[in-house]
């Protein structure tokens, strides 16, 4: 296999004949989102060719998952897209539930929808705030982080953590929703549209912002599909593709919302699509919290959901199930299963292969960022180096998810 390692030296070294300039962007660079590397060949300020390199944040999650139990893997998914971890958690729990054939109560599905949509808003707040920062508009970022803090408070009340949420378990939630949950969500919903409007006023029709983003690094419908784009970045090119509509999961078919699409697939369209998606998420959360049903916070599957501690000490049956779950784990039937959700960043797919044991035999994550960064070469070649920075932040490439 040594035949493939000879290509390491593939960059054009600047000589006196060619006035090219070789610039190493990253892995640690303020304008790179996380530890990404991009070696670009420059002619003046124009990028002739770029060589993206990834793997600086690789933590071998797929290998690690093979020795974890199904509920432990949830903690791994936190660390993938750390900007919107609840959505990753739900993707995993839903996939395992599908394998086990568990139907969760409606309340659980609704709470999950609320958290996934909060995660979407959180993700878009960060990515669009940072897009502004990368282009020199720092103010909007601060407006957005105020709202993000409110979401973090909701998540903290529910899970006890801010970033690494480990939200939900296979078969339901970890615990019942806190008493203040409804009030917190309504509080957030009350203040959010105002902030969104203020951000629109700051950037959307801002002459400098438009000049910097319109027509920058566009991608056509066909190319985006071939490159495997999903989520807001695909919708910005004009393709109406949303897993929430195409293959509804977790009661999404009960909510009334629209899929915003763009036209040109450039940075400005990605910005507009994400901004409108936040508005739609707001609508979904409002519907879900208004009609939040009462009921149990986990499905009635004692061989999957851990019993309450006080039952374990007083109830024979609960103790037996507790022992069995801890010692033998959750054992999905033999087979493979692919399940995907519309995560804030695109289609997050989980491909699980089970051999019937307590650990997955093999796990593969379809991470949306992986495809965006694959296409980065085509997107930024021929453009200015300042536009490349705008392009990367508008695609919302997150190293933790990319390298997995």
């Amino acid at each position, binding site marked *: *296999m040594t035949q*493939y*390692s000879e*290509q*390491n030296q593939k960059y054009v070294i600047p000589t006196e004949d060619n006035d090219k300039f070789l610039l190493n962007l990253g892995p640690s660079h303020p304008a790179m989102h996380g530890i990404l590397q991009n070696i670009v060949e420059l002619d003046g300020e124009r990028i002739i060719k770029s060589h993206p390199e*990834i*793997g600086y944040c*690789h933590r*071998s999650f*797929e*290998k*690690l998952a*093979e*020795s974890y139990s199904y509920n432990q893997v949830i903690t791994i998914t936190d660390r993938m897209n750390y900007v919107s971890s609840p959505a990753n958690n739900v993707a995993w729990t839903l996939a395992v539930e599908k394998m086990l054939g568990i139907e969760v109560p409606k309340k659980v599905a609704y709470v999950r929808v609320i958290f996934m949509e909060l995660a979407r808003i959180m993700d878009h707040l960060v990515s669009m705030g940072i897009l502004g920062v990368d282009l020199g508009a720092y103010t909007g970022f601060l407006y957005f982080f105020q709202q993000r803090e409110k979401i973090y408070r909701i998540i903290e009340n529910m899970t006890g953590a801010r970033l690494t949420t480990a939200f939900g378990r296979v078969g339901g939630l970890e615990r019942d929703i806190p008493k203040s949950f409804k009030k917190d969500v309504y509080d957030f919903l009350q203040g959010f549209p105002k902030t969104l409007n203020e951000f629109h006023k700051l950037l959307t029709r801002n002459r400098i912002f438009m000049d910097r983003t319109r027509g920058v690094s566009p991608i056509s419908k*066909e*190319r985006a*599909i*071939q*490159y*495997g784009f999903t989520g807001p970045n695909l919708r910005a090119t004009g*393709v109406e*593709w949303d897993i929430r509509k*195409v293959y509804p999961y977790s009661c999404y078919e009960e909510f009334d919302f629209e899929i915003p699409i763009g036209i040109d697939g450039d940075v400005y369209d990605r910005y507009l699509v994400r901004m409108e998606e936040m508005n739609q998420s707001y609508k979904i959360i409002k519907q879900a919290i208004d009609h939040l049903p009462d009921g149990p916070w986990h499905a009635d599957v004692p061989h999957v959901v851990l019993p309450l501690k006080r039952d374990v000490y007083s109830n024979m049956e609960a103790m037996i199930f507790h022992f069995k779950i801890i010692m033998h784990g959750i054992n999905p*039937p*033999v*087979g*493979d*299963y*692919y399940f995907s959700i519309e995560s804030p960043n695109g*289609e997050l*797919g989980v*491909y699980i*292969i089970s*051999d019937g*044991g307590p*650990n997955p*035999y*093999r796990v*593969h994550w*379809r991470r949306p960022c*992986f*495809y965006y960064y*694959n*296409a980065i070469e085509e997107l930024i070649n021929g453009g200015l180096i300042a536009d490349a920075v705008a392009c990367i932040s508008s695609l919302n490439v997150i190293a933790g998810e990319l*390298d*997995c």
Partner: protein
Amino acid sequence: MQKNWVDWLKQKLEDVSIHLEDSVLSSEKAIFIQPTDLLRVATILRTDPEAKFDFLHSITGIDLKSDLLAVYHIYAISRNERIILKVKIPKDHPMIDSVAHLWPSADWHEREAFDLVGILFHNHPDLRRILLPDDWEGHPLRKDYVPPDYYGEFPVPANLKDRIKRPTN
């Protein structure tokens, strides 16, 4: 699958052995093909105006202990149709054709499968390691992979080695 793509493929490519296999590792219906036929099947699925599966979702490399398996999830985005291709690859010569020229999204996926599972892709434009360093030895997602004692001059902690070993029942 709304349309029976297996019959359709059999009609188009008569000399290709295609079958649906209810193997140990498939609960969904997947199309099993021979490694030598992969390029022809992929090309017709991608380019034929009737099929036009334009969206490659993911390529997963799996070590089945006896063989390696590559799983292709392919979509036709305009029709919401999905097809799953599975290719069993012998371990002593783990080489199949690359499909990176059909779907650009396959490019990095194949590099990933090469890096972690050790599947070689013939005619891939740039088959290098993608996630691990270039001087890494072995393919970690193989089931017989033994973690090294040292990476360069750095010792690998013993507790880490225990953790990444798969517990056997």
